[in-house]
């Protein structure tokens, strides 16, 4: 779902396929995105920004299985984003 909403610009500042941006997301029982926090920047601002924009475009995640929520109202998801490999490698 995120992948389909993510527009990774051809901004290959480092020509580096190892770019990685990681966000910590808190997803509610109904799949709603409650919080997002940048955990690890790729160091490439346009790449990080494209991830932020993609996360903002998500209306709702799939409902997390109840077993993951375990009595809380949310589940925490760390999500790492990397660019397409084929072009850069």
């Amino acid at each position, binding site marked *: *779902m*995120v*992948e389909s909403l*993510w*527009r*990774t*610009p*051809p*901004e*290959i*500042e480092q*020509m580096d396929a190892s770019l990685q941006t990681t966000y910590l997301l808190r997803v509610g029982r109904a799949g709603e995105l409650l919080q997002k926090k940048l955990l690890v920047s790729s160091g490439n*601002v*346009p790449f990080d*920004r*494209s991830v*932020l*924009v*993609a*996360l*903002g*475009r998500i209306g709702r*995640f*799939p409902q*997390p*299985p109840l*077993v*993951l*929520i*375990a*009595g*809380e109202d*949310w*589940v*925490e*998801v*760390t*999500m*790492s*984003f*990397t*660019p*397409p*490999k084929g*072009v850069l490698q």
Partner: protein
Amino acid sequence: MKRYRMFILVAVVLAPCMLRAQQVHIDVEASEFRKMRVAMPAYAGPGDLTGQLWTVCARDFAITGLFEVIAPQGYVNPGPLGEIQPGSLKDWTLIGADYVVAATVSRQGQTVLFRVQMIEISTGNVIERTTYTSGLQTMERAVHAFMNHMLKEKFALAPLFSSKIACIKKVKGAKQLHVMWCDGTGGTTIKGGGSLVLNPAWSPDGKRIALVTYYRNNPDLYVFDTVSFRLNLLAGLKGINITPAFDPGGTRLAVTQSSDGNPEIYLMNLDGSGRTRLTNSWATDTSPSFSPDGRSVVFCSSRAGNPHIFLLDLATRKVTRLTYEGKYNTEPVFSPRGDLVAFSHLAGDGKYRIGLVRPDGSKFRVLPGSGLSDEAPAFSPDGRLIAFAAANGNIYVTDLLGMAAVPVTTGGGFSEPAWSPFLK
């Protein structure tokens, strides 16, 4: 669906030890590069100004390599809109926009006021709301100021629109030096230097352009001062004095000369002194370009039979062949980042394409470009983009993946682009 399966998998593995909410990790690899989409409703203000500024702004977004502009035909509200109301963001979400840009243009005497607003739709943040001013005759500068500010503040990128492209323009049978902003605006054709001017090359400080003219009926090397508009002869040896390239320090030039027999590459100071021969081959060696650290030079040589790209280590004089693909690779230029060499590559279909290779000879690839026949690449000063000349006589700018090639000139007659450093 993939995500859902991931949730279940993690749940099954971790369920026995779960006492409270667990943390799940998901890797997302993009399947392809996609540009961010910008909606640009018509600007508010007098029509003689708004249309022109809208066109410049749309082209500039495309040139950045980050964005594609959504065609206005599909807009819920095509404008004119001087400002986006917060409640109307859904109109832009519906058409898949990531950003929307609205502007009001007004005029006070000879001054143009460009009040622009840019909203990031996913967050609702207004990332730009500023009024830029410019002279009536140079109103593209207001758009450039907006673009430069947006690129710097939101994407940590260099001010692309403070750089220029020098090229050769055919005017009534003569080929003359033409200098314009990198989006093609503000162009000036510089008369003088005779009817045939070739091979422009910027100095690292952007104050001089080395070029070749036939002013004395011989291909001689001159340096044009962009401040005083003076043209000074630098090298006029018998034979050719062509394809100049400044070294990164701006104190020396590499040039192709044939006074000693066949064309070889020489290095000289800007007053013509200290001339040193860099290549020594039976074949034609030409088109030097320095690496950004000044330690090596890429050039074109026919020493392998056909023209190919080679790299010369200036300390050891060791020469390494970089290209083996195809039978004709010429006009190499080093990226300002030092990570790529671009060149003109004769493809299998008989058309030229812009080829790319790493300085160690690996990762050869070809850009789709204009779809015509593309030659004479020139890197932008930050190494993110490439300008080239297409067979229709226009200059194009493309990103390094070749996702879009944007024409920055119209009408044809343009060739040999050379991209300046960032100018102050």
